[in-house]
């Protein structure tokens, strides 16, 4: 017996069996206690609550929602809001992060110092504090609706939100949106075609100008084909507030600003590390074969920098989506606030609700991890 125990393989199997027994015992203990506690407190189990009426209103519902809708509907409203914030946040954080990262490496002393200071300041302030600061300090300084700040005659900014004219969903709008989609798809295919042509014949193709031309001209043509009338719903001051038009709440604005500014610092650091990781020899070699600085950047430095900069950037996208859950503190109705917050308070079935919320985030991070793995895999093939 002792000799068997001294064998490492036997010990390993024994250890694993003990672990399984321990885990099962622990889960059984927790499970029975939970069942007892739930019975005692009169909390229901199961998912029928998703079909019961919610009874509370949600200020910002991108999909139609009224108080008589079910908790299941609340879940979808929250999820849509989370995805919207994630989408908008990711786009602006990338743009800002890219800008700051490149400025950080500029040879203009003032600009690079300012970028470095920006990164040093906003990286070291907790994100929740930034969100609360934007919401409670900056946005409170905006004027009341009667004295709103005006832009271009039809855009208003006040402490109740940002009010924009909203185009009707008529033929003009649909035509413009479809043409935008067509332009993007065609740019993608033209890119592939021009790369192939360049590899075969060596002829350059003015891809940038052609893409810009398509992006601008196609929607304009579509605008005129569709009827040349967006039929804007203009925000107008009625009584104490604005009615009509598209309103963007101060919660959305402050959450977006805080998330974008915070995440952009990390993306800027990733971009900077990517560009710095390209050895100096590459830049010198590019200069020695006569490439201009812009060509060297585009053809030699950035492709190599992107390979290094993208994995941490995608990680930051995931962090942004997870940080959007802090909207609970200011009341923006994304999934944690409405579902794990209000619905939980009403229904009381904490386990089901929090499990569903966690499942949402786990799915999002699984998708992002899959994208990251696909990207790493693609990059691996290109290397020798």
């Amino acid at each position, binding site marked *: 017996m002792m000799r068997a125990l001294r064998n490492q393989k036997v010990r390993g199997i024994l*250890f694993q069996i003990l672990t399984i027994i321990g885990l099962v015992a622990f889960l059984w203990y927790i499970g029975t206690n939970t069942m007892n506690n739930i019975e005692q407190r009169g909390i229901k189990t199961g998912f029928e609550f998703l079909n019961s009426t919610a009874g509370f209103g949600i200020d910002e519902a991108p999909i139609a929602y009224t108080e008589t809708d079910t908790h299941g509907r609340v879940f979808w409203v929250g999820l849509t809001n989370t995805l919207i914030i994630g989408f908008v946040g990711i786009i602006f954080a990338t743009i800002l992060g890219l800008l700051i990262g490149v400025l950080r490496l500029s040879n203009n002393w003032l600009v690079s110092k*300012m970028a470095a200071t920006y990164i040093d300041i906003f990286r070291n*302030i907790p994100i929740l*504090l930034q969100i609360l600061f934007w919401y409670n300090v900056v946005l409170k300084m905006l004027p009341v609706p009667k004295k709103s700040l005006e832009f271009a005659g039809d855009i208003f900014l006040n402490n109740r939100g940002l009010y924009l004219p909203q185009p009707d969903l008529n033929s003009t709008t649909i035509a413009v949106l479809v043409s935008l989609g067509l332009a993007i798809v065609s740019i993608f295919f033209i890119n592939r075609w021009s790369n192939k042509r360049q590899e075969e014949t060596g002829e350059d193709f003015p891809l940038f100008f052609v893409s810009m031309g398509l992006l601008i001209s196609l929607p304009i043509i579509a605008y005129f084909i569709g009827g040349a009338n967006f039929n804007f719903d203009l925000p107008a001051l009625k009584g104490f507030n604005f009615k009509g038009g598209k309103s963007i709440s101060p919660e959305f604005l402050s959450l977006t600003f805080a998330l974008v500014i915070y995440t952009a610092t990390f993306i800027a650091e990733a971009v900077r590390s990517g560009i710095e990781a390209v050895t100096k020899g590459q830049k010198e070699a590019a200069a020695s074969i006569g490439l201009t600085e812009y060509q060297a950047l585009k053809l030699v430095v950035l492709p190599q920098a992107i390979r290094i900069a993208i994995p941490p950037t995608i990680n930051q996208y995931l962090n942004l989506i997870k940080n959007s859950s802090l909207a609970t*503190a200011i009341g923006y109705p994304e999934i944690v606030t409405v579902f794990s917050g209000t619905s939980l308070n009403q229904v009381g079935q904490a386990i089901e609700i929090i499990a569903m919320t966690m499942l949402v985030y786990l799915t999002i991070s699984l998708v992002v991890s899959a994208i990251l793995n696909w990207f790493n895999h693609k990059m691996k093939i290109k290397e020798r």
Partner: protein
Amino acid sequence: MAIFELKAEREAPSSTKGVIHWLKDNLFSTPSNAVMTILGFYILYIIIPPFVQWAYTDATFVGETRADCTGGGACWIFVGAKMDLFMYGFYPKVELWRLQTALGLFVALIIAFKYLLKGGKTKFIAFSLYLIVAFILINGGVLGLENVPTDKWGGLMLTVVVAAVGIIFSFPIGIIIAFGRASNLPIIRSVCVTYVEFIRGVPLITILFMSSVILPLFFPEGITFDKLLRALIGITLFQAAYVAEIIRGGLQSISRGQYEAADAIGLSYWQKMLLVILPQALKVAIPNLVGAFISLFQDTTLVLIIGLFDLLAMVRITAADSTWLGMETEGYVFVTFIFWAFCYGMSRYSNSLEKQFNTELK
């Protein structure tokens, strides 16, 4: 054969040193650079003078009540009047000496670490002793010290307690999980992988909700969990997963030869891991670990969402006082500065640690 025309000689630069040359080189070297410099100065001009005017020139620093704040700038008297709340939360005023003693002992410990104590074991014992003493001081209940319930803990002291407990306890748990993930026993490995990937995929706020709402359900009626304890458990479990990932990165940097050499001289698994592998892994992982701990310090602010009164929550509480209305901005600026100072200090410390360990590796 091409014939080359000699271009005319360029004049030598007027100077290679001095302010003018530096300005030309760094700020105005090309037209686009010049434009960016001017834009940069303009941005600084719109941001800095108004802020300095609000925070310093027009601000009131001395006074007693709200009425003394006349300048139109920041009213720093408010921060001074509420300093106890910001620092110690609702801790009873008569017992504040206990917190101050704990802080003083900590400073003494740091000095002792640097100058007096040598050797890992004595440092470890001294540190553990300090933890026990500090806990007794802060919590009370024994040795004639009055028990201060945890719902009175708040402010910067609570932030530090949460961060410290999170760091101290997540570290060994993270190491064990990292070992489990690297082990070749499939059950252990899959349990650890599931744990880490699960925790890293969800936001901290859901873990805190889970630990504050669901954790009491896991245990029979009699056992009640202190609210602070629930938050500490949630934060520790969360941080342990991230620590495990960082240490796994460190473990991966160690060549197989080390494992094989340890096996060759007959070390058992635990001897191998603790004496050979872990010290090398930690050396590589320390900069990332300090980064994770800075994140933990920032994440302690989330406990305000589950009802604990950390430093950030104190802003709203102090601003709610009816004798000091409208002071939220000062509160936020003050708290921002404290958090920034702590985190920036820690990141500078991490930079110096990185340099220190880098030279050792060479």
